[in-house]
């Protein structure tokens, strides 16, 4: 099938809003992701029980692009009266506004798409692992099959034909929602509304993680939590790699979303421009 050669038009920033309060831990997102992206099971399905609640995939990496976490919070009394909570959260690449992975990638394989999402281009990745250590969330790893760094693409090959990502489409309870982030009908507005609703119901700890720019300039995949971020394994104050010089959006180029050699050359050029102190794209 033909490789795309047209420059896609810039779109509204799109992303995920994950409302953990309606997550039922079913893992449909994990499987739908593997189905669409044809990702193998690292162990072929044969592995020991983790013993970590109902979490047996354990992490995000090159072959697990969605991962559901389970957190059991039960008080010490026999009736568990003080606290009786089983928190679940589907985790994924945060598609950071200031993406450490883009910063450090020496080959320019990691690009920002017209949806303002972050994608690793497998055919230009050389497997150097720089992005793996640059990611403050531990999202990226080498896919042992592809031998290159891999992570969530935010289903770029679905969103470009107007489909939503496989995981959010599959999610039975709409814990994972996909859409434009900003504006009155955007995910951020919806998320604020939900926080408000929860607070009115007495869930004082309801909070958004990554919806504003405090965390690495903002996360295009952000979360609604009902406990401290650390409880969910999310860093309170994630640090970008020291090489970081500015917002990674500086690297953003709509043209770079186009694949093929031309796109690549152009991207490299932008990178060079950037390192020469001439950010090419500040329009965001």
């Amino acid at each position, binding site marked *: 099938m033909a490789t795309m050669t047209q420059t896609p038009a810039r779109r509204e920033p799109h992303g995920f809003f994950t409302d953990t309060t*309606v997550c*039922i*831990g*079913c*893992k*449909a997102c*994990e*499987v739908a992701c*593997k*189905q669409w992206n044809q990702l*193998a*099971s*690292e*162990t*072929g*399905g*044969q*592995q*020991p*029980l983790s*013993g970590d*609640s*109902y979490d*047996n*995939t354990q992490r995000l990496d090159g072959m697990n692009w969605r991962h559901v976490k389970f957190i*059991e919070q*039960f008080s010490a009394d*026999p*009736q*568990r009266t003080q606290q*009786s*909570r*089983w*928190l*679940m959260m589907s985790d994924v690449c945060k598609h950071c506004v200031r993406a450490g992975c883009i910063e450090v990638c020496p080959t320019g394989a990691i690009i920002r798409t017209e949806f303002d999402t972050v994608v690793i281009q497998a055919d230009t990745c050389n497997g150097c692992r720089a992005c793996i250590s640059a990611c403050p969330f531990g999202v990226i790893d080498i896919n042992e099959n592809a031998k290159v760094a891999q992570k969530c693409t935010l289903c770029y090959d679905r969103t470009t034909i107007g489909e939503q990502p496989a995981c959010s489409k599959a999610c*039975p*309870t*709409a814990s994972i929602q996909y859409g434009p982030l900003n504006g009155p009908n955007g995910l951020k507005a919806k998320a604020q509304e939900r926080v408000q609703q929860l607070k009115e119901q007495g869930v004082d700890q309801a909070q958004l993680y990554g919806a504003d720019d405090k965390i690495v300039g903002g996360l295009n995949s952000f979360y609604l939590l009902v406990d401290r971020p650390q409880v969910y394994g999310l860093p309170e104050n994630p640090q970008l790699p020291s090489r970081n010089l500015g917002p990674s959006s500086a690297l953003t180029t709509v043209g770079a979303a186009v694949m093929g050699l031309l796109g690549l050359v152009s991207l490299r050029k932008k990178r060079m421009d950037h390192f020469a102190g001439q950010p090419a794209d500040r329009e965001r």
Partner: protein
Amino acid sequence: MAECHPVAFRWIMQAKLKGAKLIHVDPRFTRTSALANTYAPIRAGTDIAFLGGIINYVINSKRWNEEPFFKEYVVNYTNAATIIEESFKDTEDDEAAGRFSGLAQYTGDPLNGFVGQYDNKTWQYKGTQATDQGRTGSTGQSGEQGVQSGNEDTNLPEVPKGPPYDELVKSLLKPPAQLDTTLKDPNCVFQLVKTHFSRYTPEMVQEITGCPKEKFIEVAETLLQNSGPDKTSSFAYALGWTQHTYGPQMISCCALLQLLLGNMGRPGGGILALRGHATIQGSTDIPTLYHSIHGYMPHPSAAKGKKHDSLNDYLTAETLAKSYWSNMPKFMVSYLKSMYGEAATKENDFGYDWHPKITGDHSHMPMFLQMMDGKVEGMFCMGQNPAVGGQNARLQRKALSKLKWLVVKDNFEIETAVFWKKGSPEVEAGELRPEDIQTEVFFFPSNQVAEMDGSYTNTQRLAQWHNKAAEAPGDCRSDMWFTYQLGKRLKALYANSTAPRDEGIKNLVWDYEIDDETAKLRDAELQITGADDAAKHEEEPEGEPDIRKIVREINGYQSADKTKHLANFAELKDDGSTTCASWIYSGIYPAPGKLIMNNRDADPALSDAGKPTLGWGFAWPANRRILYNRASARPDGTPWSEQKKLVYFDPNLTVDPVTKLPYTDLKTGEPIKGAWVGDDVPDFVKNKKPDYQPPEGATGLDAHPGTAPFIMKFDGKGWLFAPTGLVDGPLPTHYEPVETPIKQNRLYPQQLHSPVYKRWERDDNQYAAPGDPQYPHVMTTYRLTEHHLSGVMSRWLPWLAELQPELFVEIGEELANDLGIGNTDMVRVSTPRGSIEAKALVTRRIRPLTIKDGDTDKTVHHVGMPWHWGWQGLARGSVVNDLSSLVGDPNVAIHEAKAFVCNVEKA
């Protein structure tokens, strides 16, 4: 529900976001509990005590007694006002004994397993035998007990042999029941119910179930506050309620409560069975079940207590003069025509004698015991895995080795297919040697859903068609191919037989050959469903049957012309002129090319708004989505409220809004004014006025007044009290599971268990004694989101296997500490049937419960085990059903894997 039916739970979460309250009652804190507003822990198997407590709470509450809605619903739509025979004795009449009147020793075949039996003569409506088909799903009434069901009145007048059968139906009329609409008569159903549950106090609930009484009251109060004219509450259940020696009584208890709360036949109400297989509903309707034939007709029986000797005997025993079951002769004759076609004539009773009869309990458990004893030679096992899913699975696997031949048809090499091979627990343990096993075993590989046309009926009775998208690999064949070819080849062998015993198979209609018409119809239907017309069907493999001809036979057609399909079951005749296998599915294929199951014409916004989507698939009967929905209107036909409006009577309507035809009287042809209309297909005679009163001698639905929503019941009412239909009592009663950690029933000191359950005690199926200190913990088995049942459709899939890769046993932290067991330690779990190893998953989600055994406080620990694993596939583990036992409920012969006892120790 979030665990096993996550997508159905989608709608629960949407309701919750709009303010609905979600309550979860379960021994374990599951993914459902995590999302619930209220979680109520409960000891496994004590749900009747819990529900009975709510019934008692409701009846005595201020709201229920002051809000007029409840009385209006209960008096008009239930049998609360009906007077019961004075000779009836309730379990409460002798608190120590805890039995209903009529208990006797069981004297039938020991293989049927009953520990006792009731004679239900004293449970009847006063002055009239409460005949009811009372047989839906009921094996206990297949003739294995002396209990009454259907018409057993020996003084019935002789009626001429039909058809027509109108005289026979009329001869079955009984005098009407006596009522006290003030509900004050001490022998009216309402008073009996009130007394029966009067000791189910919040304290009693806590002492039996272990649920703190404050939690229990919170649940009861929430239900009460959320039921009424403008609100409804609904219950969803799964095997946690059915797999008990009193499983059907659990559902019955919930039905009783829902009727009292006015939640039946109304939108957002009801009791929803969350079933586990794609067409478990369809395979119950179109029964691959021994006790019934199509459309919930009882299987002809030669067992004790049933007189089914001839077709007339059968119809006399099973037809009801009042209710829609008065049409039984039409259903049965049309069914026999579907079996024997032109050979079925009036003169030979439509081939009734060729049809086999059952002679006892031929259900799963006794059949495996028979097999173990060498009395079963051959078995077809299609899409089921008893080596893992069967109770006392060790016994079931060993029984397989006694077969002469076994045919397994499945996708993967499942445990049932390789019980004889190295790797099987019995072969590994040296209990079986492959060389000694004389079973000839076949494995036929199957097509999967996207590789064939066909339909499933989901848990809400919605039949949906699936289209063939791709060819299956190699020698995989559809299940229909297999059975069609088996029949075709067998029929060829019997074609020249002159033996009377072969008449049945010789005359069996087996005409499903593919012809030119087939492909034309299929392509036309594909267009309708929007499938890719460029990617038309593959050619069917050689020998595949024409599935549309099978559907046509299920739907029904005019016997004289197969292309004239029946539009619906109203067209059925009792004289052989119509052929129809399943009366309830009639209307699913009303004309060639019009396969309603394939309808995909529904505005998605309707489901988002909680309204029926009648254009999507076909829900039997008559594409109706909510049964008995006449109850969604007041007795006078107006909606109970604007919020809960569904079906109502429009007194001024003269033209049918769907067909655009004027309403006319069927007999006189005169125009009629007034009809039932609404968002759903009304479950009522469409022009019957709410104030209609039946004339003397009326039969069928003419015998029901305009206020009787429950059209399948002979009195048109929802039954709080079941005079027939359940063999273990007219009212639900708390009894203990057969294996229980306690020695004494808190309610009935002398009656620990149901007095009539099914027990098959033998060396290879032993039970723990009540309160046995060797087996101190309560075991409950269950399923996980990540796997499917015995794992056949999940353990071979890496994407699912990795999510729950190994068997585990969930143990509460307190018990684990007592036993010195750490998380992921290997432990040994034992029962009198077996002993298996599994990894411990230690969790505070499981909590100890404090209950009373007699007058003594007792702490009970639950141990939970999902049962998806076996020794085959990618994700492997011990077979949990090696621990469960063969023990049964007396109504439907379901086992008790949700509550038994075990021991746990570090391995």
